[in-house]
């Protein structure tokens, strides 16, 4: 077999092996990409509201599958690409330490040069190619990204385990006591729902409606933080209003207690009213009625479903009933007084229910406050918000180094202005334009040599050269001997001037960083 064929066969074998190696590498790369996409998909799936995609799958799953198909297809196409023989030769040379033997021989084999060196090159390359073992030359080893793939598998498993436990708004955040925030939020929502049910049972339609509204906003999938915060604020304002009303009621009850002062039989009633306990006051009033006069209708009285407990007329009626009952000079409770006391008891029980409702609402308000605080804290710590805060433009401040161009220029000019005139290079007038006055002449004035020369001519035919011209030169005069002063060395000041003149860079080495910095600053300023 000819040297060329041996070489080409060997290179084809190397190329196949390289393709296999590439396929393995691209396969691992594709696996890494798919695992990365899977992690992102799991997080997105857990963190966002489900939206419908294709074939009954959610949007995230659909996008994930599409991305996987693209990645795998691209990797397959790249892996199937056939490399050139030149690449195979280069790789074999590199791996086998052949110093471009195969690559050079391959190049020479495609040319028709008549040099006797080429057969030598081909013969040596064929010998090297025949000794090549592609399997040993290109071993299939696990690419370094296998480790990355393994790490991603672990991460994917961890994310898959954790994702259902994460809350969309406050991922991975945990309360101080170690309770996951989602669990705590669920508890608070359950408590709010219980309060809403209680309000419905009490017949407090307004409170029930408000709490239902808040719950709907909090539980609605895809509700933004802003919407949730607004619902919470409205509910809190409603609860606060109810609290204020309850405080006003208790104040009125205290005033009533003051009016009952001095009547010993109403002492218990007054005490209960002063402490704001309408139910205890009602019980005390009931005890004042004779056994037979206690109307079961009063004891089992239920509030009218259409009548709101926050009706202010209850208090007016109660005040009027109690005052007229207390003004009765008889200690015995007569028929007229009995009627008034019964009416007062009924009113007091209704007021008691309203106060109970206000207390329950106050508890609800505290839970709403807790939720609101949790939401604000979480929002503040979110990366996007943090970035917004960081990105705010800072004001000019030369002290902190955040100054803009004016500040920077001011510093530089100040630094230049501090230099004394004599210390700066190039201070002579006209330096920039090249019209500066010359330096004073150094050294002694030149003296002409005390010698006399005589012009002599040599005929052209006697001297070498194609043209044979006459040549003239100055020879020492025979009459007067030359008397040239012999100078052993140039004067030191002349030597210094000579060295300076020969030096291409006239800036002292110690001044160069200063000059460089100056021009660098100038360039930066120009760029701005």
């Amino acid at each position: 077999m000819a040297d060329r064929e041996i070489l080409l066969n060997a290179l084809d074998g190397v190329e196949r092996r390289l393709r296999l190696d590439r396929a393995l590498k691209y396969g691992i790369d594709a696996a890494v990409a798919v695992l990365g996409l899977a992690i992102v998909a799991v997080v997105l799936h857990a963190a966002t509201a489900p939206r419908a995609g294709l074939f009954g799958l959610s949007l995230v799953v659909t996008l994930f599958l599409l991305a996987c198909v693209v990645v795998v297809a691209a990797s397959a196409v790249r892996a199937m690409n056939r490399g050139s023989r030149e690449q195979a030769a280069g790789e074999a040379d590199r791996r086998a330490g052949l110093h471009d033997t195969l690559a050079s021989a391959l190049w020479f084999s495609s040319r028709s040069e008549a040099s006797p060196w080429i057969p030598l090159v081909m013969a040596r390359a064929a010998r090297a190619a025949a000794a090549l073992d592609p399997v040993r030359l290109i071993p299939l080893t696990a690419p370094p990204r296998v480790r990355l793939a393994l790490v991603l598998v672990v991460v994917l498993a961890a994310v898959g385990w954790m994702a259902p436990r994460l809350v969309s708004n406050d991922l991975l955040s945990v309360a101080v006591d170690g309770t996951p925030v989602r669990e705590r939020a669920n508890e608070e929502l359950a408590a709010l729902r219980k309060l809403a049910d209680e309000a419905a049972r009490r017949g407090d339609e307004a409170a029930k409606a408000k709490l239902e509204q808040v719950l709907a906003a909090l539980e609605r999938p895809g509700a933004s933080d802003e919407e949730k915060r607004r619902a919470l604020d409205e509910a809190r304002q409603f609860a606060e209003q109810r609290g204020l009303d309850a405080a006003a009621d208790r104040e009125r009850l205290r005033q009533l207690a003051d009016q009952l002062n001095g009547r010993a039989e109403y002492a218990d009633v007054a005490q209960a009213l002063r402490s704001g306990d309408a139910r205890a006051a009602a019980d005390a009033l009931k005890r004042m009625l004779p056994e037979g006069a206690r109307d079961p209708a009063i004891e089992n009285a239920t509030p009218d479903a259409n009548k709101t407990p926050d009706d202010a007329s209850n208090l007016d009626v109660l005040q009027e009933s109690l005052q007229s009952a207390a003004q009765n000079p008889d200690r015995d409770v007569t028929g007229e007084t009995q009627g008034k006391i019964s009416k007062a008891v009924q009113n007091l029980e209704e007021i008691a229910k309203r106060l109970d409702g206000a207390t329950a609402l106050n508890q609800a308000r505290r839970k709403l406050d807790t939720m609101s605080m949790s939401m604000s804290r979480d929002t503040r710590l979110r990366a996007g918000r943090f970035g917004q805060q960081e990105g705010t433009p800072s004001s000019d401040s030369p002290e902190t180094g955040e100054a803009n161009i004016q500040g920077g220029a001011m510093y530089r000019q100040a630094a230049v202005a501090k230099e004394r005139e004599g210390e700066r290079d190039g201070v002579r007038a006209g330096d920039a334009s090249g019209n500066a006055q010359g330096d004073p002449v150094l050294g002694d004035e030149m003296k002409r040599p005390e010698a006399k020369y005589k012009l002599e001519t040599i005929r052209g035919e006697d001297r070498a050269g194609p043209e044979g011209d006459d040549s003239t030169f100055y020879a020492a005069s025979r009459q007067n001997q030359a008397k040239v002063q012999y100078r052993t060395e140039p004067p030191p000041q002349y030597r210094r001037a000579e060295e300076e003149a020969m030096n291409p860079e006239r800036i002292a080495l110690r001044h160069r960083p200063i000059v460089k910095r100056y021009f660098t600053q100038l360039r930066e300023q120009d760029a701005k």
Partner: protein
Amino acid sequence: MTTVEVDRRIEQFQNNMRLVRTEVGRVIVGNDDVIDGVMTCLLARGHVLLEGIPGVGKTKLVQTLADVLHLKFSRIQFTPDLMPGDIIGTSIVREDEGGKKYFEFQPGPIFANMVLADEINRATPKTQSALLEAMQENSVSAGKTTHPLQQPFFVLATMNPLEMEGTYPLPEAQLDRFFFKLKMGFPGVDELHEVLDRTTHAREPQVDRVLAQGEILEMRETAREVPVARPVQDYAIRLTLATHPESNQAHELAKKYVRFGASPRGTQALILGAKVHALLNDRVHVATDDVRAVALSALRHRLLLNFEAEADRVDTDAILSRIVEQVGV
């Protein structure tokens, strides 16, 4: 020429190189790469500039090489008052018996096969330039006559980088004519022991002449014939272009620190040096490793650095090393 003949010449080349190395190694301790570099220049028809601190054996190396090679050798000690005529020769006025005057050219020391230009940077640029024509054209013009120089003609210049007082930096055109610039480093402890053992006794080692003029010329011819594949040549060109700051293949360091990059003569030096290097390493073709091996010696004196490089104390070797490292095959 047949393949057998090529084989014989390659073998002859390597045998001769082995002999030269052995003989030079009797006197010069270590510095094998410098010896190889000098021989590479000689065989590639180039000239070499040796740089090193005083006392590391620059002149001794050249003298030893002249002793080993059967060539006419002359030495010129460059001084500030040396004139071009002192190097190339001058026409003097003679009188014949009849009292008639005529000019006669007296050849200077440059008319030799090996010329040692010792401390070349001590002479003025005018005198240094006297070597230009001789180094490039292998001829000397005096008056209106051009005198060819005998082959092989080989200039070895030494330069001391420490004593800058009273020296003149070589002009760029002059530097570019040197094929390689080699740096002789300070020897290690073991090498110093060897130097002392060899040079502080009554008899210093002697060398034999092992290579004649004809053999050197044949080795030169052999080196020129080594084939170079286009990809390798392409690599040498990319290396050269990477040193040019205005080129689109310029390296980042070249853009920052280089004022002028290597000349085409630098690329020639890369390929010719690589050819000799390939033969020395028993290869019949030039590899990119050969180009890489000679890149520093061939290009370090052809890069002109800018002011920024001088201020940052960056030298050409650092820039070239990074370029050689990063320019791909």
